[in-house]
């Protein structure tokens, strides 16, 4: 079965999110910081009457960025490299994620069962992989990402 996915890049890896309901893509902007929130929550964003929590996805997934010496995890300077915010919803709960760049929408084969091991990402947050033109696309499980604390 094929479904529509939005593909985006984060820490030089390709990810996909299934398109369910409305989706918006915005240039990165500062959001309202919430004291004592989880470290990967940038803040709250008001957009067209909805309040979206904005998740720094790289930090949430513990994705490293190429640094001067090897990879340094969790060193994300928000909004510095022309990042985007994708606003979406999971089970009618709206939320936003910060990504490096939005690639395109495309129809993909639904990923098979979740893999046991994923390089650099906790496999519990990964639904599976889809492949298109020899590219590996990681499909994330946002329900788990949002609620597994």
């Amino acid at each position, binding site marked *: 079965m094929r479904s529509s996915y939005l593909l985006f890049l984060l820490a030089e890896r390709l990810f996909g999110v299934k398109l369910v309901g409305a989706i918006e893509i915005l240039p990165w902007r500062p959001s*309202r910081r*919430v004291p*004592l929130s*989880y470290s990967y929550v940038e803040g*709250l964003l*008001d957009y067209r009457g909805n*309040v*979206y*929590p904005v998740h720094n996805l790289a930090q949430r997934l513990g994705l490293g960025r190429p640094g001067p010496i090897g990879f340094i995890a969790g060193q994300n300077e928000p909004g510095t490299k022309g990042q985007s915010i994708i606003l979406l919803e999971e089970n009618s709960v709206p*939320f936003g994620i910060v990504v490096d760049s939005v690639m395109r929408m495309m129809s993909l084969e639904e990923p098979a069962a979740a893999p046991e091991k994923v390089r650099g990402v906790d496999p519990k947050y990964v639904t599976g992989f889809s492949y298109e033109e020899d590219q590996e696309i990681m499909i994330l499980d946002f329900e788990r990402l949002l609620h597994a604390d």
Partner: protein
Amino acid sequence: MNEGTRFLIVSLGDESYAMPITRLLEIVVPQALRKDTNLTEVFEGKFEFRGKWIPVLNIKKILRLPGKPGTSLLVVNSAKGVLGMLVDAVTEIIDTAQKPVPVPKGVMNPTLQYFGGILRYRDDLILLLNENGLLP
């Protein structure tokens, strides 16, 4: 006037927060607070209000915000009794038909009850302080 439609806007550092005005008894500029070693570190001391000693909270310390404790003292009636809260300044009182939006799930540990919701204020979002959840 319906209850909960007027909010006090206060500043803590460079950010604004709101509080339902129905909880407010008085705003005072406190003279020296009396230290009380029986109180935990989130309290700055105690203050004599209408003949009774009330504990005074340093909200910045609770919310881990940088800077000195505020210099305006709000005396509020919380579910746990009358208490004082130090803020940097009281900016204004707003009158709004808004119902506070709950803080979305997954933003912070649900056992922390510091914020009673979110309001829109001057093209921005502000957090509503929950006077009942601030006490340790």
